[in-house]
């Protein structure tokens, strides 16, 4: 048998993280009761160590017969995923403790979700995209359901699970059609097969439709968005924080690997599908968000609209557009973390404090956090000079460069509509009287990090050019 042991070196970060997830599981099992914060500290430490490993070994490589890709885009996304996860852990510690879900399993499942995202991000094969996605989703379903005594959480988990399973089925169906026409699961080979073959192939297009629909489901783009508000609202806020941020990066990687890495020569077809998804998402998300009274639900609709916006960059089908999208999604994840972090800050043992009204009069009670929230909301709305604006600008730029003027105009119009509900919160905080005394929750580390998180949106401005350049060079490597 001729078989060469594959080169494990590019995958060391993944292997290390998996081992650490196992270690957290076992240590928590045997020491859990005595060292309550052990899993917490260990998880953060192992994520930091993994980040260090990725930075230390940054390279462009393929291994495991082309199933595992290591490139700059993957490395950046992985680092971002892990940073976001660390922030999630820090933000949600007190919240979790209050609700008795500060358990070893929470950290193990979060780590395996991160592993799933890493697998997706560096997948060079449709099989791995699917497996990574399932690893991520399975961990998320159970993270949501972890709060057993809450009916809302169980309902959210059920909804997410059933629709997620449906989406996985659709994804597999699409992948099988692509497999039937190209005869391979390997994305590079699919790319080659389509370039030489007939890209007007109907079964191939049908496969593409299924794949795009499945990704639409996973991202929560209109018209496949119905689970998003319910799941965001029903999940424990600590989990919403997680599932609203990091997985979006993995989904971006999936889009890149699949649509650009594999089906790039069909861009004419997927461009049109994505235009529909993107514009409907932006429009619907922004308009419905206005009517919300629940903060988490409002942020869910805002997530839908942001997903639409980031799809705009992808659909321009140019490396610049992809880079703009990547930048957008990184910034968006960062802003989401802050926004949900604010809800966590207000929540306490007895109440979720996830109504918009809870923010009334924030300025008079806690001016610092009113400022934090203002920065977050203004950045989300895409108002200059905050980073959120630059992100939107980059995407619009890419659209204009690919001569999709009307799409750009519609997108800008709807984001103006969207600004309304973000600014309404600012108005509540500064001009309304508080309903009841606002108590802040969370530990010292959370307060610091949350403040940094928001301030970075304005203080980080000088480094924006650098970030965009990195995204550009990462995406230039890809295609």
């Amino acid at each position, binding site marked *: *048998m001729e*078989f060469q042991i*594959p080169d494990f070196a590019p*995958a060391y970060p993944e292997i290390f993280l*998996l081992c650490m997830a196992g270690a957290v*599981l076992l240590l928590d099992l045997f020491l859990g009761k005595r060292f309550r914060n052990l899993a917490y500290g260990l998880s953060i430490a192992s994520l930091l160590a993994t980040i260090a490993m990725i930075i230390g070994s940054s390279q462009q490589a393929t291994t*495991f*017969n082309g*199933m*595992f890709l290591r490139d700059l885009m993957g490395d950046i996304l992985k680092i971002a995923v892990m940073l976001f996860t660390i922030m999630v852990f820090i933000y949600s510690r007190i919240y979790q403790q209050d609700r008795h879900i500060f*358990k070893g*399993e929470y950290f*193990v*499942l979060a780590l*395996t979700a991160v*592993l799933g995202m890493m*697998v997706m991000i560096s997948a060079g*094969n449709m*099989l*791995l995209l699917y*497996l*990574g996605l*399932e*690893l991520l989703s*399975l*961990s998320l*379903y*159970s993270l949501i*359901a*972890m709060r*057993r005594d809450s009916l809302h959480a169980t309902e959210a988990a059920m909804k997410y699970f059933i629709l997620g399973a449906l989406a996985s089925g659709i994804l597999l169906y699409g992948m099988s059609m692509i497999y*039937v*026409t190209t*005869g391979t699961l390997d994305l590079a080979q699919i790319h080659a097969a389509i370039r030489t*073959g*007939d890209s*007007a*192939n*109907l*079964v*191939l297009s*049908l496969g593409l439709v299924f794949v795009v629909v499945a990704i639409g489901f996973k991202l929560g783009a209109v018209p496949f968005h119905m689970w998003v508000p319910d799941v965001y609202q029903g999940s424990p806020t600590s989990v919403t924080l997680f599932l609203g941020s990091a997985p979006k990066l993995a989904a971006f990687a999936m889009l890149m690997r699949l649509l650009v890495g594999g089906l790039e020569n069909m861009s004419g077809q997927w461009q049109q599908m994505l235009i529909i998804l993107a514009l409907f998402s932006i429009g619907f998300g922004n308009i419905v968000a206005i009517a919300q009274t629940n903060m988490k639900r409002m942020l869910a609709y805002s997530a839908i609209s942001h997903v639409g916006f980031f799809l705009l960059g992808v659909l321009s089908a140019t490396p610049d557009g992809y880079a703009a999208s990547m930048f957008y999604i990184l910034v968006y994840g960062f802003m989401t973390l802050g926004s949900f972090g604010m809800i966590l800050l207000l929540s306490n043992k007895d109440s979720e404090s996830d109504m918009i009204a809870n923010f009334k009069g924030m300025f008079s009670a806690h001016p610092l956090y009113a400022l934090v929230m203002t920065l977050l909301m203004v950045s989300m709305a895409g108002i200059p000079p905050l980073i959120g604006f630059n992100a939107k600008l980059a995407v619009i730029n890419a659209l204009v460069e690919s001569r999709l003027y009307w799409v750009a105009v519609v997108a800008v119009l709807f984001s103006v509509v969207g600004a309304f509900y973000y600014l309404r919160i600012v108005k509540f905080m500064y001009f309304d009287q508080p309903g009841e005394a606002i108590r802040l929750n969370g530990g010292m580390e959370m307060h610091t990090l949350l403040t940094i998180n928001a301030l970075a949106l304005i203080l980080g401005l000088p480094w924006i050019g650098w970030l965009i350049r990195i995204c550009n060079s990462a995406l230039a490597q890809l295609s």
Partner: protein
Amino acid sequence: MTFEHIVFYAISLILLVSGLLVVTVKNPVKAALFLILCFVSGAALWLLLEAEFLALTLILVYVGAVMVLFLFVVMMLDINIAEMREGFVRYLPVGGVVAVLMMLEMAMILASSKTGLVERSHPVSHGADYSNTAEIGSVLYTDYVYPFEIASVLLVVAIVAAIALTMRKRPQTKKQTPSRQIATRAGDRLRMVDLKSEKKQP
């Protein structure tokens, strides 16, 4: 028509009919049993394709384990069949239209000359001494070792998740600890009391 053709069509017929019955039959337990029949027929078709490892594993895993647990749950559910059927007529028009449309669309694509499906050459039929199991094993643990390991991580996560979601300590549950039970000695439970025999009253 060779013997294999006859077997193929017979088994396929069983597969299709039982598949149809899974969704039409009223009693959920019977539906589950028909699903088992589906799996068995599917396994038989795989045998015809000389994929004996897959066929037997399908039976072992799906029929022998997954469906047993399925049946467990279905049998213990108290399902009111009449209630379940209530919505059927109401949703029939919409559902029917969607189904028919989908079928038409699929037919249009598959019947079109532009499907791009090409007939591939028949795979080589191997002799009786060809071990499909060894072949799958050697591919699975070499070329596909990475997805294989990820799939195993997925299973571990499933176990962890299932245990995390179902195991909870309820104060009212009573349970025994076998090691402590075994370690007990008669002296812990039983006290020998020396009773003086009473003297018979005169």
